């Protein structure tokens, strides 16, 4: 047996016989199992619930009685973002961005029902997910049981005894590293199970394994750092202090500094200010409900010329429907500009924050994890774009029904009496302009692409700590 293997076995013997190590391992194992099971169940339930709600929303829309098509434009429809299977590991931005959106004419609504806003008393603390446990708490477990792996030998002078047996520093540190790495890798077992079950639920197997590999690499970054600090310090107290300080700095403080820096570098215009600006722009486009609005004067002239008639009453189509359709198209173009501007600004902030992964392996891991799980900001933006397409298509579809199936004269006289009102009702068969909506997770290639940069950061963290550890190990002194 090689010397590092003997040392590796002894390290496990020590942990088995240490109440602290056993207690810490049991506690964290229970925590991991609990969060994995609860998050898995919650996300699976969410997935089924949202699929059901989506179906129900579509059925509700389609079951509406005959009525004026523009009433259906305002009746609206809901679109739900179904979480990808890997959300059971990392729900990502799902908890803060909202999971459903109300789609209606002339408006782009925000997503609603974010868990963290819906909870009664979160006090700023999000729920504990497997991703958060691996990112924040497992490093603490590794610090608790690993900070003394080498420095303990120095403090008790057994390092002198080890070295005097002809064991090299590299062999000693390698044995300790492998022992601590084995704890880290064993802790990944719940993640492996969750990821494999995600792949059986439809997520890509390669992506599921990549997610496991990401967390393995992240925990090995911590293992290398812990062993490096333990090798280079003189007392356990100093080693523990330095490691906890590093954890606080990189896992707690740096992300917040990153967020503040992103906000300062790419400041978001205020919601009220933006809405006032957009409202002013919208007014210039005219009111689509009023075909006589001067904003549509040129449009009317063009349409009359196109159909070679003198009045809108002579048109073979409903001019009010045409105005509504044109106004919706113009409004959508305007609202998309604002939406893209906002998404671009959020993306800049997100990229800025992601670059803080060079200062915090936790941030790099969080970024890679969300990208691989397809629960990041870009996926949410795709959801917004896809729902906007859905919204525009069904609104314009209803406007087309308005144009083609309602006469202009009936339309303008719809409020005269009961019979007039009945005449502008179109068949509910027309509501089938609504398309089925199913939000699919990102493709595997897109996820790889998004995760590549933070994974590179993580790899560099690992190489830096491991190479430094090897250098110090080769020069270790009692």
């Amino acid at each position, binding site marked *: 047996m090689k010397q590092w293997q*003997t040392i590796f076995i*002894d390290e496990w*013997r020590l942990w088995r016989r240490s109440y602290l190590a056993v207690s810490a391992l049991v506690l964290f194992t229970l925590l991991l199992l609990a969060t994995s099971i609860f998050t898995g169940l919650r996300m699976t339930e969410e997935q089924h619930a949202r699929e059901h709600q989506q179906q129900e929303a579509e059925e509700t829309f389609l079951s509406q009685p005959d009525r004026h098509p523009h009433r259906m434009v305002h009746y609206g429809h809901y679109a739900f973002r179904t979480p990808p299977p890997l959300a059971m590991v990392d729900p990502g931005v799902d908890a803060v961005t909202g999971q459903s959106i109300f789609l209606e004419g002339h408006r782009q609504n925000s997503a609603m029902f974010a868990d963290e806003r819906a909870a009664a008393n979160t006090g700023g603390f999000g729920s504990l997910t497997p991703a958060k446990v691996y990112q924040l708490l497992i490093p603490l477990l590794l610090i608790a049981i690993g900070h003394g792996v080498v420095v303990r030998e120095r403090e008790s002078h057994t390092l002198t005894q080890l070295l*005097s*047996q*002809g*064991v090299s520093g590299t062999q000693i540190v390698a044995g300790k590293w492998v022992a601590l790495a084995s704890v880290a890798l064993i802790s990944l077992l719940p993640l492996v199970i969750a990821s494999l079950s995600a792949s059986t639920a439809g997520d890509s197997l390669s992506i599921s394994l990549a997610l496991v590999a990401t967390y393995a690499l992240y925990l090995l970054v911590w293992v290398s750092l812990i062993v490096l600090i333990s090798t280079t310090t003189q007392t356990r107290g100093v080693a523990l202090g330095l490691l906890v300080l590093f954890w606080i700095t990189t896992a707690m403080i740096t992300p917040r500094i990153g967020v503040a820096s992103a906000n300062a570098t790419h400041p978001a215009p205020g919601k009220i200010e933006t809405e006032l600006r957009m409202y002013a722009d919208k007014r210039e486009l005219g009111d689509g409900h009023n075909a006589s609005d001067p904003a549509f004067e040129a449009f009317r002239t063009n349409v009359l010329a196109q159909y070679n008639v003198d009045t809108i009453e002579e048109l073979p189509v409903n001019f009010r429907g045409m105005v509504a359709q044109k106004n919706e198209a113009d409004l959508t173009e305007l609202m998309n500009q604002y939406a893209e501007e906002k998404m671009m600004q959020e993306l800049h902030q997100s990229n800025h924050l992601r670059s803080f992964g060079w200062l915090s392996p936790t941030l790099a891991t969080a970024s890679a994890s969300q990208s691989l799980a397809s629960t990041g900001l870009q996926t949410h933006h795709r959801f917004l774009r896809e729902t906007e397409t859905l919204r525009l298509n069904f609104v314009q579809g209803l406007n087309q029904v308005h144009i083609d199936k309602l006469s202009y004269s009936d339309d303008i006289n719809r409020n005269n009496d009961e019979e007039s009102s009945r005449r502008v009702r179109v068949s509910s068969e027309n509501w089938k302009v609504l398309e089925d909506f199913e939000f699919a997770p990102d493709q595997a290639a897109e996820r790889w692409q998004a995760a590549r940069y933070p994974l590179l950061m993580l790899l560099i963290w690992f190489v830096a700590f491991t190479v430094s550890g090897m250098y110090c190990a080769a020069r270790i*002194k*009692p």
Partner: protein
Amino acid sequence: MNNALEANSLSINRSGKPVLNDISFTVPAGEIYALLGGNGAGKSTTLLTFLGFLEAASGSVSVQGEQVNKNVKKAREAIAYLPEAATLYGHMSAYENLRYFLDLANAKASDSELNEALDSVALQTAARSQHMVTYSKGMRQKTAIALAILRDSPILLLDEPTSGLDPLAIDEFNRLARKLADQGRTILMVTHDVYGACQVADRIGLLRRGKLVGAFDRTEGEIDTETVHRAFAERAST
């Protein structure tokens, strides 16, 4: 006779301060050399230098004719080291400690050889399977001596080997050391036990504040307790 250990004009600084100052001595193979000195004389530093844990400011140390700084691994393989505070693992029994360190040193020993070594240091049989955290200092010292014996190394460096031992165990240890030397092992021990050194050593060096201030050779009839004790009191005590 070949020299198993050799220090040539050795000077060592620790934290910028001189700890050993131009000392030279040799230990021929199969002999016991005792370095006597008070606290802070540089005795333990001398041993650590032979193990390659400290670098010489000037001069050199050699193990079996080869300079330590040129091949530390070879030097450590030739040496069994017994530190002043017996440094073994509290979470293991004496048997487990011995097996662990022997495995690391690539040395083999059967169960009967382990018991034989533990018998030779008079460690109680009942204690051998207990975790060493329950051991007294003397019991830990005995186990560490057993390890040094089992290593089967040609050279033993012993730092205050009788510290913590009861008088009977000290006598037992001295007899054991003599027996090992007679079997061809070289022993360099540092101690301030003048009586014990005079009992077993072939040569004695007096160390004071990093300088060798006296040397005694048994073959020259220079080693008797009274002479060495007087010299120690006059020249080596701090």
